[in-house]
């Protein structure tokens, strides 16, 4: 896929820099060809886009992200572990869970969450496309280990679960705390509770470690200064990125809702502010393209045709479906592989 992408890129760029309207037309012809018609759901839009070279579409709409913070691919087997644990500890709620993890999820009794695990899942599946066999095996082994660990952890943490586990020598003073004491460790209630607490903290730190890129290298658990350092860096980097991105967005358009205007116009068929839209000479946009390519660039094209009524939910869907292509910030080759996996 990569050579394809690179072949596309110079064409695209030359289209821009060559000051040739024909070049632009070529690119947008592709976009035009990409969109067959008003799609009903996200799925159909994906497949529609996939009919024609996905790298082009992705390239056009989602440029190469500047690596503000480069995210090296995390070790994806651990991502399944992350997902399992994230389901325990994170608060993203979701209705649909992948079937594999439901057994593991059923062990834990906390809220089911998805987004945290979905994002690593996505990045994980990119890696999956490259080496499926190895990944599956290690995935399964990791999952098995995690399952065992899960059972142990949940039994440790659960203060009210009925599950009794044969423990080596845990003096269960209190009736409802089921904690397994390891060999050679004190078994009074204080240290048990403390140990349980520490285990909780460590488990969550592991999750965190897996979420933050670049923390997987060290095999030591949690609490280490390096891990915390990485986490702090990541949070600070993300916060800075938000600042810079909002500045970029403020700089790129004279009005902050230039795209919203277009959508609003479509919704309410009201007049549009032409200060920005006047920048796009209609000559670039042949009539036929506007109708169909609207769905990919709703903010601009709709602005040119205020009269057209359209389903704005579709736009948001489309745009966000295209956003999801790029959710792991990586090269276009991964985009295409992800697009293929969407099929």
């Amino acid at each position, binding site marked *: 896929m990569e050579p394809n992408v690179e072949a596309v890129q110079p064409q695209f760029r030359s289209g821009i820099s060559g000051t040739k309207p024909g070049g632009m037309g070529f690119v947008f012809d592709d976009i035009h060809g990409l969109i067959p018609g008003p799609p009903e759901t996200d799925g159909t839009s994906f497949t529609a886009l996939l009919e024609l070279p996905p790298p082009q579409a992705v390239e056009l709409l989602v440029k190469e992200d500047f690596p503000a913070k480069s995210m090296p691919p995390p070790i994806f087997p651990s991502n399944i572990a992350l997902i399992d644990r994230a389901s325990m*500890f994170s608060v993203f709620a979701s209705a649909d869970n992948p079937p594999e993890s439901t057994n593991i999820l059923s062990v834990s009794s906390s809220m089911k969450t998805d987004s945290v695990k979905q994002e690593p899942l996505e990045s994980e599946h990119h890696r999956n496309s490259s080496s499926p066999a190895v990944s599956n095996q290690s995935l399964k082994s990791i999952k098995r280990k995690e399952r065992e660990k899960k059972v142990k952890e949940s039994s440790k943490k659960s203060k009210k679960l009925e599950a009794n586990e044969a423990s080596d020598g845990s003096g269960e003073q209190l009736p409802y705390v089921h904690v397994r004491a390891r060999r050679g460790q004190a078994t009074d209630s204080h240290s048990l509770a403390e140990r349980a607490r520490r285990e909780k903290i460590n488990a969550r730190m592991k999750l965190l470690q897996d979420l*933050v890129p670049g923390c997987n290298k060290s095999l030591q658990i949690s609490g280490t200064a390096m891990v915390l350092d990485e986490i702090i860096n990541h949070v600070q980097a993300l916060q800075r990125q*938000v600042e810079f991105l909002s500045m970029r967005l*403020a700089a790129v358009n004279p009005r902050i*809702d230039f795209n919203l205007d277009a959508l609003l116009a479509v919704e309410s068929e009201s007049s549009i502010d032409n200060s920005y839209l006047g920048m796009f000479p209609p000559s670039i946009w042949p009539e036929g393209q506007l109708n169909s390519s609207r769905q990919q660039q709703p903010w601009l094209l709709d602005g040119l045709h205020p009269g057209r009524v359209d389903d704005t939910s579709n736009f948001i869907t489309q745009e966000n479906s295209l*956003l999801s292509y790029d959710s792991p910030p990586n090269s276009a080759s991964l985009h295409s592989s992800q697009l293929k996996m969407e099929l």
Partner: protein
Amino acid sequence: MQNSSSSSSLMVKQEFFTKWKKGLKIYSAFNKEMTIMERKRAIKLSADVAIASTRSATTQWSRAVVAEVSSSAAGAARIAAEEILGRKLSTERRKAQAGKKIVRRRRKAAARGAVRSSAAAVAKKVVRNRRRVLKRLIPGWKKLDEICLIKETLDYIASLQVQVDVMRHLANAGETLHHQQILL
């Protein structure tokens, strides 16, 4: 499975995007012409409130973000935030929330009562300092104890990632088309 996984993160992004745009609409309804700094502030505030509202007040940081906005927001910002959240903002500062009690865990040192070796003590001190720094980064850190800190950090990082992704795509697309326009 891939579809479901991507679709649920997609849902979060969609929700964020919709709410964010709602806020921006209100801003633009208020002032037609804004300086670049005003625009940036509007964009950031709308994005923060939007991403916090996707949590629907289940997490400490989202509540803290909303509280901060509600206490220090001007006219347009306030209306935008209210619109995104769908509810009125409380203006008064809540004194003692029945939230988290932070128990100073001094008993550890007291119970052990031993003098730690210097290396371990130094390491623990370093770790403790880092934890404090991390805590300060998360909005609403005053009410977080150690366990919740990690949980909140997890959630906060994921939400920030969503926010950054959506904003970046929008910025890239906007700039791409802008440059196309200029070069032609």
